[in-house]
Structures are given as C-alpha cells and as structure tokens.
C-alpha cells in the first residue's frame, strides 16, 4: 500500500515538474514589458542613486 502511494506521489511530482518546464518553454517573451523595464532602468530617477553616490564621495574627498 505504502509503495503504491509513494509511486503515485512520484508520478505526480514528475508530472508537475514536466508541466512547469513546458510552460516555461512555451511562455512567449513579452517584448513590451521587457522594453518598458529597459527604458525605466535608464530613466534619470533610476540613475540618480549611482550618480549621487559617486558625486557625494567626490565632494567629501573620499572618491578615487
């Protein structure tokens, strides 16, 4: 009885793993979302942190 339950659980796990893999493969690349993310990451707001960090270090004489 235990063996049957273990086999059933194993088969179910394999099926879930297979389903996840297939869905990942079939998911189309969302061009709009990727492009949006790319553009947003280049916005002045997104860049502020890096520029301020270096500017502050430079102003306080710690940079370089």
């Amino acid at each position: 009885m235990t063996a049957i339950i273990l086999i059933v659980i194993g088969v179910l796990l394999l099926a879930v793993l297979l389903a996840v893999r297939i869905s990942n493969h079939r998911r189309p690349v969302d061009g709009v979302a990727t492009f949006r993310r790319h553009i947003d990451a280049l916005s002045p707001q997104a860049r502020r942190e890096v520029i301020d960090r270096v500017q502050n270090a430079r102003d306080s004489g710690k940079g370089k």
Partner: protein
Amino acid sequence: MARDLAIDLGTANTLVYMKGRGIVLNEPSVIALNRQTGEVLATGREAWQMIGRTPGYIVAVRPLRGGAITDFEITERMIRLLLQRVGVSRFTRPKVVICVPSAITEVERRAVTDATRRAGAADAQLIEQPMAAAIGADLPIDEPVGNMVIDVGGGTSETAVISLGGVVALEAVRVGSFDIDAAIQNYVRREHGIAIGERTAEEIKVAIGSADPIGDENEAEVRGRDLMSGLPKTVLLAPEEIRFAIDDVVSSIVASVVRCLAKAPPELAQDFLVRGMYLVGGGGLLRGLAQRIERECKVPVRMSPMPLEAVVLGAGHCIEHYEALKGMFMGARR
C-alpha cells in the same frame, strides 16, 4: 558573496565601480614587471611613475593600446591584481561588466572576456564605451530624442547618437590622447632636436596644449636629451607650436564627429542644435577641443560634469540594474 563590478578598462586609466559602493579604484592602466623573472613589481600609479625611468631589468608597460589588449597574459595579470585589490578572492567570484571601445574586433572582445574570466570573474559582459558614457553623463537616453556623446579616450575616440536606450549612429577612430602625446614627442624631436619621454609629452599637453586658440596662453620650458650631443637641454615651447604639432590628431577626432553627425537621422539631428553634444573622457579635457568641435560642426558642445568617471558610472548603473539592462551588453542584441 562577492559584490558585482563594473570596470572601465581604458588605455590610460582603469576605474572600478563596485555594486552598492561606488568607484573603489581609479588608477593608470600600467603594470611593472621584472623582465628576468616575469614577477609583477607594481601596478597602477606606482607603475606609472616608473615609465621611462626603470633600470634594464624592469619594464613598465601599458598592456592596452587603442582600447584593445596587446599583451593577453599581462592584461590578465593586471585584471587579476585589480580584482584582488577590490576584495575578489578565489571563493568570491563576481559578475563583471567591462567597457570596451565599440570598434574592437570579435577576437579582441573575446580576449577581454577571457582575460576577465580567467582573472576570477564568474561572468564577464561587455558594454560599448559611448553607450556607458551616455548613461554616466546623465543624458535623457530613455526618451525619443537625439543625444550625442563624444568620448575621447587614451587610445580611441568614439561618437554616438543615442535615443530610446539604443545606439542610432556610431563613429569610432583609433586615435586618442596618447596619439596627441606621441605627436608632441615627434614634433619636439623633429623641430628642436631633443628627445622627451611620454610623461613629459603629457605634461606639455596639460600645461600648454590646446586644440583651438584660447586666451591667456603661456610658453613652457621643456627639458630633454639633445639628439646631437646627448646632453640634457632646455627649450622653450609656444602654445601655437603644440597646436600645430597635434593638429592632425585633433582634425581626425573632429572629422569622426562630423561623420557621425552625417549618419544621424534628420529627426534626431535637429535635436542636437537645441540639446548640444556632450564631451566625456580624459582626452575631452584638452583645452579648446569643445570650442574646435563646436566651430567645425556648428553644434553646441558641452562638457559632462564628470568626464573621467562617466564611462564607469554608466557601466556601474548597468551592474546595479543587471537584469533590466542585460540587453545592452555586446552580443546580447542582434
């Protein structure tokens, strides 16, 4: 866990940006080696001070020329030492984004990535210098407007038109501030009969070099070795002489900017008249260069607030937003 790094592996200087920290290293791209044993004796500023002043058994070299690796093994050792200095060990292997000239060949690209991986990076990605410079110069490249950036480095000069996060037009020449130094060395040798080293040539450039006449110009006293007698000799150099000496190099940089302007689509070209072009890189600090480009291109030229750091800042931004910006890396597109 290693912090990821962005490296501006320049012909003249190497800058390292550490994720979450900022610029952690800024030194000349020079390495000093013992010629007999192959041992590394010094790197960075210490090695730079040795250029032209070493005994026979020591050699101080710049392993990059024109933005490309001229000596693979030495470059790898230099990168390995740089990574060690910023805390990378055998057990902490960071992701690294390296800025390279857009004009480098496929073979040269592979040489840079291989050298970086072998030096201890878990992954090495390349980004074109003008793209990184535009990000670091804080230009609004996320908007559909024409942004033009001119990056004059030690070995290359690149001009790019960027809009909506991508390169629209690009022009690169393997000419940079080292060629200006070499032109000064040749001129002094030819016209004054004295030999000077590359560091002295650089000092002359900084002291009296200019690409266009500027007010308040002084002469400079230069010491070198007389080619006829072999004895030390001092000559007086005028700024006009230096301008004449470096004119071919400057003209070639300006011509590449003109070619890039000509490649830009008309819709973007009109933006430059309003927004101007941005000058970055150490070579961009040559006095009168912005003025000369402006005069010949009839487009305003502005200096980036952080011209020396702009490229590494741009690459640093890419390492901070690695997933969102990985499409910008060379080889990721197409």
